[in-house]
């Protein structure tokens, strides 16, 4: 047995770790990543500030946990109540609103519950519940899931009233949940970007959108260096300055997907 080539192979295998530029770890939500906006912003951020942003794509719940544990330097999520709690707990320096997009209801193109004509998002949910039409929920404690639960509460339909026969908790990310909805031909609430980018639509169609209650505010939260001394607080602030700059505004507002504008920049300066 010749050991030389095997040895060479293993040596190569071990030469893993490569030199890195100034990098910053940011936890973002699946919905932000799925929109494709990250692919536009990240190269520009690197060009303008020299910061290599490494994205951890997780649900809002996990993103906040990563920030609390100090495993990331900043987070970009969309669940106001949870974010404010995060800052109050001393884990974040502050909360800075950056932009918003919106949620939409998607469902079987025949629309058995008739939500297309609904006057509001809560009415649409009420119609789905009345008809016992299959509805897929994220069920993963993400920002989208929290938003959905809030809307159910506003519609006056509590957890007990949502029978397992039609209300299915996928316990998964936006894409996986959309796959489930597509497979079951069920209703689902999704952010617009994930829906437009989704490649396995099947019989599903966009049925309801436009209620202001469905607006979805994204906020940037640098992780507190007082809580975790190792976080790259200075880079995180540099990134924040970039995210609220005119340059970011032009890129975010100018981002279109399949003919539609996705995000509206609304950072206060």
């Amino acid at each position, binding site marked *: *047995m*010749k050991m030389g*080539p*095997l040895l060479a*192979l*293993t040596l*190569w*295998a*071990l*030469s*893993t*770790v490569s030199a890195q530029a100034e*990098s910053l*770890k940011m936890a973002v939500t*699946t919905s932000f990543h*799925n929109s494709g906006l990250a692919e536009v912003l990240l190269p520009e951020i690197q060009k303008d500030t020299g910061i290599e942003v*490494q*994205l*951890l*794509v*997780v649900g809002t719940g996990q993103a906040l946990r990563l920030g*609390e*544990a*100090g*495993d990331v330097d900043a987070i970009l999520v969309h669940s106001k109540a949870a974010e404010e709690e995060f800052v109050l707990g001393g884990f974040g320096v502050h909360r800075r609103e950056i932009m918003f997009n919106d949620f939409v209801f998607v469902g079987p193109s025949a629309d058995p519950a008739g939500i297309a004509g609904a006057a509001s998002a809560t009415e649409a949910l009420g119609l789905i519940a009345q008809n016992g039409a299959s509805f897929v929920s994220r069920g993963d404690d993400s920002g989208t899931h929290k938003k959905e639960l809030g809307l159910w509460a506003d519609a006056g339909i509590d957890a007990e009233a949502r029978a397992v026969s039609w209300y299915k908790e996928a316990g*998964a*990310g*936006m*894409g*996986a949940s*959309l*796959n489930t909805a*597509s497979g079951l031909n069920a209703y689902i609430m999704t952010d617009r970007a994930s829906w437009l*980018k*989704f*490649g*396995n*639509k099947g019989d599903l169609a966009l049925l309801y959108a436009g209620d202001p209650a469905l607006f979805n505010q994204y906020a940037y939260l640098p992780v507190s260096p007082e809580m*975790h001394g*190792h976080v790259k607080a200075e880079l995180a602030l540099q990134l924040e300055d970039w995210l609220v700059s005119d340059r970011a505004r032009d890129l975010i507002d100018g981002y279109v997907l399949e003919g539609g504008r996705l995000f509206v920049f609304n950072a206060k300066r």
Partner: protein
Amino acid sequence: MNDILAGLLHAAHLIFTLDADLIEISLRSLRVTLSAVLVSSLIGLPLGCWLAVQRFRFRRLVIATLNALMGLPPVVVGLIVYLLLSRSGPFGVFGLLFTPTAMIIAQVVILTPLIASISHQAIRDLWAEYHDLLISLNTTRRQRIMTLLWDGRRALLTASLAGFGRGIGEVGAIMIVGGNIDHATRVLTTAISLETGKGNFALALALGFILIGLAVAVNLIIHSLSRTEVSGRW
């Protein structure tokens, strides 16, 4: 059927155009798993051999436990390694979470019991054959283990390759400790998971075919380098 065909075509396209991202994540897959296999083999092979040769009180219990650990659920290993390496965990100061090193550590935990168990089985049979000879030559325990390791190298290679097979296709643990960061910790399996989530079944499937091809290629290369099935028994 159409999806599968589209996947095959997409795979061919990616390979023939030498897609830069594809090459990057394939190499990272190989590096992570080969490193983990190397470390696991360095621990597992001598451990398996030692368990075959040495007699001690709880030997059966240790072997049974080792066999049971072959079925260690990767997602649980991932979670535990994650909590250990997290900044708030006991090894947080090293800042290893979400790096390829963390992925290697998790895979070493998964692969070592597997490699140790398989090598123990193989060496046990060989030891039965060699027992009288090695005893009569008055060899030390270290010499016995070295002899068995060398003469059983083909079977031990199988043990390491079984480890490679489990590691290269593993997604549960490395997704958790690596975080699937683009250009940093994304490997083939986590990329497949991501693309499936996006509903891009053709691309996911293409990556899957490439992963299978890679696993087969590595096995073939190692077999040809070690000249198994070529001349005589050894």
